[in-house]
Structures are given as structure tokens and as C-alpha cells.
């Protein structure tokens, strides 16, 4: 399903991975256990209020700080369908693609969105709609190479196919992609 629709949890800027999943819970890698504590230091009621398919909308630098992959894992495991932010921190961005948490960069929608709004994200086209405010905008698109990883279901299945299939190549990406004008800003690592 490439279209996600859900109720918004509206967060601010610089939501770091320590606050997404505090280090005191990093002694486990169990997604269900991590989900119980997702964002609890920002709002202790968040793990209780969040429901399947809900969407997090946040300002700049979402996922900053620690490289802990437990952060996107916790967000996905507590049912969140997608994170829409003005910008993402780079390690979180890579981790989300790799573990299959849909993320979308769309400042135009973030700026008009409030807690409780309903928004719709079309992952195939990159169209983001705030149904409550009746605003539609285009997300920053993923480059083709990254879309292939997303379509494969993350980096692990992508590399599994590449490395274990008889005609797979030795690595996971195009040899080199030369940036062309506006493409430069499209990939955030």
C-alpha cells in the first residue's frame, strides 16, 4: 500500500534519538519492548496515545544525535505509519530507509499542520495532503537508487538479492551517479 492516511502527532524541532528511545532501553533489540517507551521522555503519554497508522509531523532536524537504529525501529513498532518532517538528521534518514520506516521531507505541509490533523501521504508520487487544512504539496523525491532499496523492503533484502542471487552484482548501488543541478539536494546523506 503506497498511500498512508493517519492522524497527526505534531512534534517540534531537534527531536533527537535520545528522546525517541532513551539509552536505558538500549539493552534490548526487541521492537515490541522498544515501542513501549517510544518518545516517552518528550511526552509520557505518547506510547499510550499512539495508534496504528498515525503519522508524526515534526520540524527541522528530526532524529538528530545518536546513531541508534532502535529509534526508527521503535517508531515503526509503535504503529506509526510515516514521519513527515521539514528536515531529517542524516543517520536517522539512512536508518529509516534501511529498516523500512517511511519518511517524507515536506516543509510546506509541516508548516500548516497541527496536532490531530489528518494527513495523507502517497509514497509512490510523493504527494502529501493535509486533509484537515486542505493543503497539498510535493515531498522532496528520493533518487532512483534509494527508491530501489525502499521497494526491496530495506537494505537487508536489497543486499540479500544482490549478493546471493546467481546474477547479482557484487554491491548494492550504481557505480557512481554524477549530481546534475537540482538533483544535488535530493539525497540526504
Amino acid at each position, binding site marked *: 500500500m503506497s498511500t498512508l492516511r493517519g492522524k497527526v502527532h505534531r512534534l517540534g524541532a531537534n527531536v533527537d534519538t535520545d528522546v525517541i528511545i532513551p*539509552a536505558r532501553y*538500549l539493552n534490548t533489540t526487541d521492537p515490541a519492548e522498544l515501542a513501549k517507551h517510544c518518545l516517552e521522555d518528550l511526552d509520557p503519554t505518547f506510547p499510550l496515545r499512539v495508534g496504528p497508522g498515525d503519522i508524526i509531523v515534526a520540524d527541522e532536524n528530526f532524529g538528530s544525535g545518536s*546513531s541508534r537504529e532502535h529509534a526508527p525501529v521503535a517508531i515503526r513498532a509503535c504503529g506509526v505509519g510515516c514521519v513527515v518532517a521539514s528536515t531529517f*538528521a542524516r543517520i536517522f534518514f539512512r536508518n529509516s530507509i534501511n529498516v523500512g520506516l517511511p519518511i517524507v521531507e515536506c516543509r510546506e505541509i509541516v508548516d500548516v499542520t497541527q496536532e490531530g490533523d489528518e494527513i495523507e501521504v502517497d509514497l509512490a508520487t510523493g504527494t502529501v495532503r493535509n486533509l484537515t487544512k486542505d493543503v497539498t504539496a510535493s515531498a522532496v523525491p528520493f533518487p532512483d537508487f534509494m527508491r530501489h532499496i525502499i521497494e526491496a523492503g530495506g537494505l537487508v533484502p536489497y543486499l*540479500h538479492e544482490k549478493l546471493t542471487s546467481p546474477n547479482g552484482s557484487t554491491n*548494492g548501488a*550504481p557505480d557512481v551517479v554524477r549530481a546534475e543541478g537540482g538533483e544535488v539536494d535530493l539525497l540526504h546523506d
Partner: protein
Amino acid sequence: MSDDQYGSTITEKILARASGRERVRPGDLIMAKVSLAMANDITAPMAIDAFRKIGVPKVWDRDRIALVPSHFVPAKDIASASLGMRMRGFAREQEITHFYEVGRAGIEHILLPEDGLVAPGDVIIGADSHSCTYGALGCFSTGVGSTDLAGVLATGEIWLRVPETLRIVYSGEPGKWVVGKDMILKVISEIGDDGALYMAMEHSGDTIAHLSMESRLTLTNMAIEGGAKSGIVPPDDLTVAYVKHRQEIHGRERPFDTLVSDPDARFARTLEIDVAALEPMVAQPSLPSRAVPVSEVEGQEVDQVFIGSCTNARMEDLRTAAALLEGRKAHPSIRLIVIPATQDLYQQALHEGLIQIFADAGASVAAGVCGPCLGGYMGVLGPGERCLSTSNRNYRGRMGHRDADVWLANPAVAAATAITGRITHPENIGALV
């Protein structure tokens, strides 16, 4: 094309070579060959699970992988012990050359350069956000998550977007109490917590020649707190001497190239910092960008002082703190925690008598572990408690309870604060005590 008629930054040169290209430019997507891959006890277990799912039987090169227990060791609980078992089992199964055991290990970002495993021109990928630290030796290094690291374990390569470079030009000689920590806190206070997002942070200018390797490692350590992908110090004579020395000690001599940015390289932005005018800096709760000169926060009472972490737990840091603490006691209201970053540093501090000074001052001393920096254990803060720390992050909840407050500072400010019980400029210690 006229587009190609200009020079390259050091980061572009390293990434060009690692991807077999003559030249790369910011925005290019490349596959880079990795010189060294690293994971710790928090990130390795997830990476190992992902590696197994990728489905190749052996890692790409058992000599180019470092597995370092550093966060929850010696095991703080049964769950942490289990994480350690998963990492240890994998290291044995794959015959990983650079697996470090508790008691012979330390915080990876201090351990690996000291162990002669990092050299100029390398590409280092670490499953820990402070993997940007190694750039102080003139290499490209960046942090990734566990799944990306698993990809490196399987292939020895990683896709990267060539970053733009934020060049920081420092001028002037640092004052007596000013070190790399103050310079990077000043930078982050200028650019903001995401001011270098996706970029390489290149540290340059005449001040660099005045900086010890310890200070340079602190500069690059906190690139991530400005949002940067990597931090780098162009290699000079000090770098070469340090790297050769560390390689010789550990029998790891290998050739390396010292690349620097071309005079006509292009930078996304250049920031100038007058270091001669800089005071020690203190980052106020709860963002590193909220750094101000120490004089603006002097007098703020705290409950705990932590001297340690991958940012500030090297010999220079320990000697500075010990010089202030010698013959003095931590204030009765203060809990002082000192953690040299590696077993070797602990031993050296022991030989130099620094551990005795810390113990006499009333410090709780451990060795070779991240400790309270990330609120794991060994000094977790309770509700409303206040800590001044030499570490790198003061985010809400970072060191414990969400209502605890953390100030970040250099080791001299930390030692001075431990003595008085409130945030103190080290130059005032003589007068106060």
C-alpha cells in the same frame, strides 16, 4: 566543462580515491571502499542480525573490522550481558582480529586511533554517531546505523553522498584554559544544532598548529552535534608523528597519504572564529548550541560532575583535571565521576599518579567505558538533578531523568566546578579555595 576547473577539498579527494574516481563533487552518489568498520555493544547485535539476514557466510575482511564493547560494560544487567554474548560469539565465529574484551578495551573513538588502526586518507565507517571523531587524523569517517554497518560487513563498501564542506578557519593562539572543546562549542553556538547538516566540517587556520592531537579529536568528535556527516583536520607534521608512533607501538606500520584541500577548492560556507578572544564555553541545557562563555553561567550550582566520554577523557584532559584537583577535595555537595577512556589511558594515569589525585579528591573512578554520558549507568541523573559533564550531548533525558539538566564544558571547567560545587572558571580556583 567549466564546472570541473576548480580544486577539491580533502574530503572530496579521499572519497574520489575510495570510489576509484579521478574526482568527485558534492552531491555525487558513490560506492566507497571502506578501510575500517566499527561497531560497539549497542549497535553490533542489530548489525549481526542484519548481516545474517543478508545471507553471506563470512565478513568481507576480518582484519578491517573492530568490535568494541564500550557502552554497557562490564555488563550492567542480564540484558546487557546477552548483548555482549552476541557480539563476542560473532567475533569468535568470524575470527575478527580487532575484538576488544572488557578490561583491555575502552571507548572506541579514543581506542582505535591510540591503537594505530586509523591513518590519514582512510575511509572509516562506524555504527556510532561519534565515529566522526577519527577525522582528526585526516581521514574521512562517519557514523551509520546497524543495518548500514551490516552492509559494510558483507561487502566492504558503502554508498555515500559526497558532502559539501563547511570550512572553519580558526585564528589566534588559544588562552590558557581554552581547548578544542571550547572551539567546537563556539562553532555549534554559531551555526546551530543542524547548521552543518549533511556536510563535512573542515577545521583549518593558524590555530590548528597550536592544538594537541587530543584537542583536535575533540573538535571532530562533536561534528555530529552540528549535524555534520564528518569532521576533518588536514594532516600536518603532528598528525604524521602521532600516527607513525601509534602504528609502531602496535606493530601496525602501513603507508598512508596526507591529503589536503586545494587552494581553489570550493566550500559551501566559511566560518571564521577568533580563538584568541575565546573564553571557555559552557553549553546550557538542553542543546549543545546553547553554549555561552563560562562567565555567563558561573555560580550555577550542580550536583554531579562527570569527566569522561569520547569527547574529553584522553591524557591531556586527565592531566588538566588532575592539576586543578591535586591537593584539593571535591565539594561536599558534589558527586565527582572520572572515567579515563581506555585501559591504556587508565594505566598511564595510574603511573603518573593522576588516579591517586582523583581518588584523594573524592572521585569515583572507573575505566574504559562511556559511563553516564548516555545515561546508561554509572551516574544516571534523577529528577531535577544537575550535572556538568565533559561529554558531548545535553539533550533532555540524555544522562537520565527527563527533568535532569546537563551543562557541557571542558575538563578544566569541570574540575573547577567539582571543587566549588558551582560552575566555575578555572582561573578563579586559586582565589576561591
